[in-house]
């Protein structure tokens, strides 16, 4: 009964959150406010995509910007070469997802052969190869990048429409992540995180499972990259393939709570608006915001190493347990009395052995 109540409370809470998220742009119509919302949802989607692969499998990927930038560039190049205009550009989104998954397969086949630190560095190396390609290939527009097709929406509906598109992506990715977490596939991924060799010994096709999760994560990241590109209307190699993008995702996930979907979302919703807001305040922009983000990161790791959600849920459990009597085991050991005078020589074996 209690369990069912909790499930209802959880479901109800999620519905309330969703309603609030849907109402947000209706209440705050100011475009400078709603653009925070759009970017937060874009990063929430990317962070959940990161969680699907890295959070479940334990392989820390610092190459997600490969997919993000590829999605943005796929949309830009396809729209340019096929002369797509206005809302018909959104028909390219499945293509962007397919490109993301298609890149993830060879990327994963190379990178997933190695583990831990080496995997991290290989993802960084492949990321730099992609950034260099965006700079230098003939069809990418070089260092000036690409501009998106023009959308004839006024500022307020522009942001509102993008907000709902990003919200749909975020909800979609959360549902995908939740389904994976519940499935046999998710269980296999977590088995790999805990002990890959043993998982393989028990019959998990580790490479196939890892590659599958990597491709799903890549497809989602590419889709949200394409939407991000259409929202900010341009992409350059250093913004599409941004090394800070990956590190920001990791920061978000660890701030919220590594290994949980809600942690990834919460981290993104805190960090992204904060950085966007700091860049608008002259006293906090540029180098100062870098220092502040670094300091937040240090504080989180040192004082909340497991992230906000696990730490706070621990705290809540502790508070709820406070009034109740502690559970006493039935066979308690009587305290051994060693006499009233502590300095008196005792005959117990324990202290005798120590002397």
């Amino acid at each position, binding site marked *: 009964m209690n369990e069912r109540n909790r499930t209802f409370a959880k479901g109800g809470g999620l519905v309330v959150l969703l309603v609030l998220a849907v109402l947000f742009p209706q209440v705050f119509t100011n475009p400078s406010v709603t653009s925070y919302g759009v970017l937060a949802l874009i990063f929430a989607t990317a962070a959940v995509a990161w969680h699907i692969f890295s959070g479940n499998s*334990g392989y*820390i990927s610092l190459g997600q910007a490969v997919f993000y930038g590829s999605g943005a560039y796929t949309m830009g190049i396809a729209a340019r070469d096929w002369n797509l205009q206005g809302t018909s550009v959104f028909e390219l989104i499945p293509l962007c997802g397919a490109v993301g998954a298609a890149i993830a397969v060879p990327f994963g086949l*190379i990178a997933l*052969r*190695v*583990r*831990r*630190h*080496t995997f*991290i*560095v*290989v993802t*960084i*190396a*492949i990321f*730099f*190869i992609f950034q*260099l*390609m965006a*700079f*230098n290939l003939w069809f990418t527009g070089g260092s000036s990048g690409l501009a998106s097709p023009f959308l004839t929406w006024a500022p307020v509906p522009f942001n509102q429409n993008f907000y709902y598109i990003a919200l749909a992506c975020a909800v979609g990715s959360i549902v995908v992540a939740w389904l994976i977490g519940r499935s046999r596939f998710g269980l296999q991924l977590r088995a790999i995180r805990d*002990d*890959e*060799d043993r998982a393989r010994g028990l019959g998990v096709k580790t490479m196939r499972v890892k590659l599958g999760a990597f491709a799903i994560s890549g497809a989602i990241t590419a889709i949200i990259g394409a939407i991000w590109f259409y929202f900010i209307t341009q992409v350059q190699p250093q913004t599409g393939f941004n*090394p800070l993008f990956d*590190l920001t995702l*990791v*920061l978000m996930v*660890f701030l919220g709570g*590594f290994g949980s979907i809600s942690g990834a979302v919460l981290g993104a919703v805190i960090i992204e608006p904060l950085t966007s807001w700091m860049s608008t305040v002259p006293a906090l922009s*540029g*180098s*100062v*915001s*870098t*220092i502040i*983000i*670094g*300091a937040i*990161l*240090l504080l989180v*790791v*040192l004082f909340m*190493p*497991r992230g906000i959600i696990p730490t706070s849920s621990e705290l809540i459990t502790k508070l709820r347990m406070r009034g109740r009597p502690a559970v006493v085991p039935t066979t308690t050991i009587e305290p051994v009395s060693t006499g009233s005078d502590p300095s008196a020589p005792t005959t117990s074996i324990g202290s005798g052995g120590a002397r």
Partner: protein
Amino acid sequence: MAREITQAIIDGILLGGVYALMAVGLTLIFGVLDIINIAQGILVILGSYLAYSLFTKAGIDPFLALLITIPAMFILGVVVHWAFISRLRGGERTSMTLLVTYAVALIIEGILFKVYGADNVQISPSYVNSTVHIFNFYIGWIYIWGFILAVVLVVAIYALLYRTRYGRSVRAIMQDETAARLVGISVNRVAAITFGLGVAVTAVGGVVYGSTNAFNANAGYDLISRLLSIVILGGMGSVGGALGASVFMLTVESVVTIWQPTWAVAVYYAALVIVLLVRPQGLFGRKAVRAQ
């Protein structure tokens, strides 16, 4: 053509020596503490800026300034280890230390931007552009000095590792940390010294990097990704591997630059990927047993 290639190989070897020194710091820290120091790149730039300030404000020769900057960087490393890294425990320690060193890198980067601005600067003592003419090849003195200094320091680190009590402790910890603890090695102290040492060598790398390149605080990203590639290619924790890999990588890049300046960096990273396909443990690394 053959002459250009030879020149490129010479340049690659000389520059490789300097990168080796920075990479040795990284690989030592990795071997003993089992962490990646993401801040290594920005620490090199910090070393460059320190030398730059001492040169422009106080007129101290950048190589002479190493007598000040090396101890300063050593202390910085020990402090960072004591304040942040030694406090991390638990299962996610590897990822956590990655985040901590990244946070340190961000803070240093922000401070450097705040103090020095975003303009590119270069350390330019009078001899920075003078060259020596040997067998028809022109070689910059700064590269030669940097190479000699790097070789001397790498040899010194080797001697430290294989001839001293500290070095024995370091190698014991690399082999088996628990066993090292059991035989009475103070792992925390050795780790602090190693972290300090690994950071201290960036002062030397910083001087040579800062005199041969125009730099600002953003250059740290380029450096750290190169250094990580070198360390992985050489096999993590292997000092000799870092030396070999950095000379190999820099020579490859330098030779490719003759034909394809734009793609030289891609070749650099592609070399890493290809080598790892054949040897996942790196060129000189030991095969990891149950690496998870």
